[in-house]
């Protein structure tokens, strides 16, 4: 029996309490073992339909199956998994089994994937105009607001900290007529875009092409963003010449997922340019006799804690 994690979001306290109680009742009867989890680690969201719809859109944009909870006065919404409150055990069990079937049928899916792409795609569209005065806003699955405008991203300090740690999921940005709190901490929009790219899915971003060579037009400020050795290497290589994604993976010896995330981050931050469809030539270093320079660089790299 698979174990699946579920999180209730935006429910009224009594509805949330009822849901938690029912989960214990369905334990052992469902096709999956259900565990409560935080929203970012959940496989499934159990969300309220109350509000103006933007919250539910945010949950939906996470790409995780959403069980939409409606009250007994609401009309049935056009959503795949709907449950009317007050709950009945068998109805809850039926919905949970349907969700378990869906997840079992797509074991390879990257949960949370569409949300990250949708946020990234909206960022791509907005970055060229991110300096404009108009604000756009998105939410994390925890309901934290993240604002984009004036060349900045504003959010609560803890939200920004989670972003820097690669632990933040956000949905697509949408226009808003309101403004963020004036004292909300800010980071540069391009820095935000870098982090969103780095925390994205493992595969090549949909706006990048496997047969196109890319090079760096400008380095990210690692003093501001934080750095690891792998990123330094990829930036250095991408400064020297343009690489197709596959060629960069091969030449760098890094995981494809890391290279793809680097490319997504660099492109979202506006640091990457396409350089035609040229293939990177064969590596000059392969098979050649090490010169004194090579040996020296190898020694220096080891001294500095870089891969030799």
């Amino acid at each position, binding site marked *: 029996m698979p174990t699946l994690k579920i999180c209730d979001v935006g429910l009224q306290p009594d509805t949330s309490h009822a849901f938690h109680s029912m989960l214990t009742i369905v334990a052992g009867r469902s096709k999956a073992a259900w565990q409560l989890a935080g929203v970012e680690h959940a496989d499934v969201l159990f969300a309220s339909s109350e509000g103006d719809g933007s919250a539910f859109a945010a949950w939906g944009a996470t790409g995780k199956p959403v069980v939409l909870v409606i009250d007994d006065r609401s009309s049935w919404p056009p959503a795949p998994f709907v449950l009317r409150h007050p709950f009945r055990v068998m109805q809850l069990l039926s919905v949970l089994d349907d969700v378990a079937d869906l997840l079992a049928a797509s074991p390879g899916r990257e949960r949370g994937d569409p949300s990250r792409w949708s946020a990234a795609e909206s960022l791509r569209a907005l970055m060229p105009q991110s300096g404009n005065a108009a604000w756009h806003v998105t939410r994390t699955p925890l309901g934290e607001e993240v604002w984009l405008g004036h060349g900045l991203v504003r959010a609560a300090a803890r939200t920004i900290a989670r972003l820097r740690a690669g632990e933040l999921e956000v949905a697509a940005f949408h226009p808003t007529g309101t403004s963020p709190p004036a004292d909300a901490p800010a980071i*540069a929009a*391009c820095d935000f875009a870098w982090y969103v790219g780095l925390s994205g899915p493992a595969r090549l971003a949909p706006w990048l092409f496997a047969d196109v060579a890319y090079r*760096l*037009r*400008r*380095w990210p*400020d*690692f*003093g*501001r963003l934080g*750095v690891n*050795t792998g990123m*330094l*290497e990829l*930036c*250095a*290589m991408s*400064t*020297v*010449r343009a690489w197709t994604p596959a060629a960069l993976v091969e*030449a760098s010896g890094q995981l494809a997922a890391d290279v793809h995330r680097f490319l997504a981050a660099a492109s979202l931050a506006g640091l990457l340019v396409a350089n035609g469809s040229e293939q*990177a030539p064969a*590596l*000059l*270093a392969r098979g050649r006799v090490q010169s*004194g*320079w*090579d*040996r*020296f*660089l190898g*020694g*220096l*790299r*080891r*001294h*500095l*804690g*870089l891969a030799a």
Partner: protein
Amino acid sequence: MSGVEAGEFKIVFTGPMGAGKTTAIAAISEVEPVRTEVENTDRVAHAKESTTVGFDFGRITLADGSVVRLYGTPGQMRYRFMWDILGRGAAGVIVLLDASAPGALVQLDVFVDAFIPHVAHGALVVGVGRTDVPNAPSTDAFAARLDARGIVAPVLSVDVRRQGDVMMLVRTLVCILGSHTAHGVPA
């Protein structure tokens, strides 16, 4: 002839007075840096008490016994003749700037112009301090300045009092050197 073939691998720290060159070398040198500092008589340019007039020198010894020499140039224009002497044969150059100093962007041009001819592999890294001072230009402004000149070089915000930041500059420089060696277009 490369510096290595000549038995010397040299990294040069340059930049205007007060940018932190001496501090940066001291942060990573395995020996007490050799300094040629005298009393600063140009308190208009910078309020610090002493300034480098010859050069600073530090050293890193690698496991195989080879040595990386770290040179810091004087920052004042009147000692410009030392820049060419120290820059010659450099494997790479680290330009340090103080974003809060007047004309910091112009200083970038001055030092890039002076040292670009000496770095064969484009091994140039720019470290910018005090970017958090109100109205100081951001690292993006410095990077844009390089963009306009067709130079793709890292511009990193640093605090050279932190060894980790100085090591980041050196690691970045070495990564660039390694990439040019392994993946660069042959001359």
